[in-house]
């Protein structure tokens, strides 16, 4: 008889193709998870390099390094790559690795589709990035693709549309796979309310993806037919309305921002109990809060576009609905704090990132509340205040949570501990860099500096210079992150199966590194 975890390979091993073919044809959730994570790290550096072009140009007023057209291409591509290429694939990679381990399944439910949904991505981004070398340049109208401006994009336009289609197809397939795995592949005895929170938040995220990615696909299809097939969805001349695009886009766009944060909530909910050595405070409340946030995300979209002109009743509705989101989010924040309360806390790198997440995501949440106030939003709209807000929720929010998750689970993947000292150096460089980069942008926005402009009035110089220094500090310290991961892959202190003290959950019952096949026999969950 074989036990679940030591039943390694045997007859599976001999079928393994080697080299690149292994990665092209693999249907193993761990391989695919690794590919997603490596791809996302690569895109993180590509998008990060674009951010550094932006910050270098904004270090001083005037035009130094790049043409305004190229600057606009950078802002657009930076956003598209970071959202669809870095943050979302990182979460899908973590889901691929961890969800089968957390629910006691031998693999994802649909392994071949899993392979396809990953391998679409390199093609999508090759298409998107190739536009940088076109005569007319890459798309430059902002990632929100508002018509009529987007329709001035040259040859890059169809490439943009089809790459967005591909990313959408990849996400939808990934989401379907995750839902089926979670609902149908759980080990016997694991009821829904016994699932780890990372799995729970991903279940809800996957439903969000299925609900809104097709809407984005529809919106960009309309752009495509407006451009090439003479329809007038958004052409005022033909009876269409460009504002309608904004409604459709943000109907996708707001749930999209929660797609990028709910799995982060899940990761933080795994890490804080481990290092506080206490069970998560209010597990069920966390689940219901996540579901409430997901529901509310469908009825707040117009807060992205208060300034287009809207009836008063509409503005009030969207303002109050937006503020309502603070309630379930507050539940989560307080539950995390309550989990740490009187815990026997230690501060390893994952916990440091988790605590920084807690502080800094909350700052981003508060500036979001300020933006929700309609009369204030008229002032802040399209200013650097908005840039500061969404970078606070996305960088020390989503990205820090991903890094926390990587440090937390890395020993499980590689079987080796990462270098704790270097991990802490990376943390402090990142947390200082991120704040130096983005905090001054609040002041710039409040003082009236618009976003997406390569030049600015001289009174904004100091804060921009500070912000650029912070951005370079944050960006360069990520090379250290890559080095730490590389070192943990190559060697280092051996990790135990538990990895951390007193960890809970099925993923810690398999050896480290997790064998190629796990849970061939479903584990018993009490």
């Amino acid at each position, binding site marked *: 008889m074989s036990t679940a975890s030591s039943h390694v390979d045997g007859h599976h091993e001999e079928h393994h193709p080697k080299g690149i073919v292994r990665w092209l044809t693999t249907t193993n959730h761990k391989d695919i998870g690794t590919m997603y994570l490596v791809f996302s790290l690569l895109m993180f550096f590509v998008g990060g390099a674009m951010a550094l072009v932006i910050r270098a140009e904004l270090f001083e007023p005037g035009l130094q390094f790049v043409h305004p057209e190229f600057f606009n291409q950078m802002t657009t591509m930076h956003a598209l790559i970071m959202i669809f290429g870095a943050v979302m694939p990182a979460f899908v990679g973590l889901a691929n690795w961890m969800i089968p381990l957390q629910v006691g399944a031998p693999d994802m439910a649909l392994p071949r589709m899993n392979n396809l949904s990953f391998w679409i991505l390199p093609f999508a981004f090759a298409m998107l990035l190739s536009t940088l070398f076109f005569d007319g340049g890459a798309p430059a109208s902002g990632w929100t693709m508002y018509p009529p401006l987007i329709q001035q994009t040259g040859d890059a336009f169809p490439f943009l549309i089809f790459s967005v289609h591909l990313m959408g197809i990849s996400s939808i397939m990934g989401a*379907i796979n995750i839902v*089926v795995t979670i609902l149908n592949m759980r080990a016997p005895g694991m009821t829904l309310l016994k699932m780890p929170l990372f799995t729970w938040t991903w279940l809800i995220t996957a439903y969000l993806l*299925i609900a809104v990615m*097709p809407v984005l696909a*529809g919106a960009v299809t309309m752009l495509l037919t407006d451009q090439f097939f003479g329809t007038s969805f958004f052409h005022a*001349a033909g009876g269409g309305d460009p504002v309608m695009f904004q409604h459709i886009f943000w109907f996708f766009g707001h749930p999209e921002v929660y797609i990028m944060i709910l799995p982060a909530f899940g990761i933080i909910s795994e890490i804080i109990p481990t290092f506080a050595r206490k069970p998560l405070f209010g597990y069920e409340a966390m689940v219901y809060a996540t579901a409430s946030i997901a529901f509310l995300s469908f009825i707040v979209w117009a807060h992205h576009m208060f300034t287009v002109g809207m009836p008063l009743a509409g503005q009030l509705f969207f303002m109050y609905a937006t503020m309502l989101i603070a309630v379930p989010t507050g539940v989560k924040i307080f539950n995390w704090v309550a989990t740490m309360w009187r815990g026997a806390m230690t501060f390893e790198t994952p916990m440091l990132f988790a605590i920084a997440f807690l502080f800094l995501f909350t700052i981003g949440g508060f500036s979001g509340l300020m933006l929700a106030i309609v009369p204030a939003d008229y002032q802040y709209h399209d200013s650097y205040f908005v840039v500061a807000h969404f970078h606070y929720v996305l960088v020390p929010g989503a990205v820090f949570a991903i890094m926390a998750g990587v440090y937390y689970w890395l020993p499980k993947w590689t079987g080796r501990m990462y270098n704790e000292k270097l991990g802490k150096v990376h943390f402090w460089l990142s947390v200082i860099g991120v704040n130096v980069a983005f905090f001054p942008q609040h002041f710039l926005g409040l003082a009236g500096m618009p976003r997406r402009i390569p030049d600015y009035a001289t009174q904004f110089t100091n804060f921009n210079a500070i912000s650029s220094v912070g951005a370079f500090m944050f960006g360069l310290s990520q090379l250290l992150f890559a080095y730490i991961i590389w070192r943990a892959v190559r060697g280092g202190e051996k990790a135990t199966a538990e990895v951390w003290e007193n960890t809970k959950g099925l993923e810690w019952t398999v050896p480290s590194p997790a064998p190629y096949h796990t849970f061939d026999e479903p584990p018993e969950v009490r």
Partner: protein
Amino acid sequence: MSDNTGSDKRRAANRSLIGHLLIMTAGMFAFGFALVPLYDVFCDITGFGGRTNTEAATVTERPDESRTVTVEFASNLSGFGHWDFEPEMRTMEVQPGRLYQMNFVARNGSDNVLTGHAVPSVAPGSVARHFQKTECFCFEPQEFDPREQRDMPVVFILDPEIPRHVDRVTLSYTFFTGGPVAAR
């Protein structure tokens, strides 16, 4: 044996769940397109987006002589080209319930025959449905000979039901010009 029936069962369960999720995906794709007519209905009801009638309205004059409303006229050109497009006057004091005429002057500055189409919009959107046009150059595309200039009239009326707190309404036209008329 029991393993096999177990995996068959799981396969069937997976199939039906995938089916449901695919239907959801297709449904949401369709929903994105369904938003287009829904948005039209929403705008027609609320006047959202400053929609105003694009076909001639039939009205009866019932002047309300107790007050006047300032109507502002705005003109915009879409894209580039040799066009002039201006109202004869920027503002006009009107009494609700009375018909007025205003001319917009357009000039084709190019050497080609061009057609243009003006798209109207009324602000604030909440009173757009109280602004009716009985005659308007915006109802049809306008053809211009090379270098032709002409006055284009709009005849409009403000509904006497227009809320009393509204003392200023803007009628704006954006003039869209197509390419040269083919094969003339």
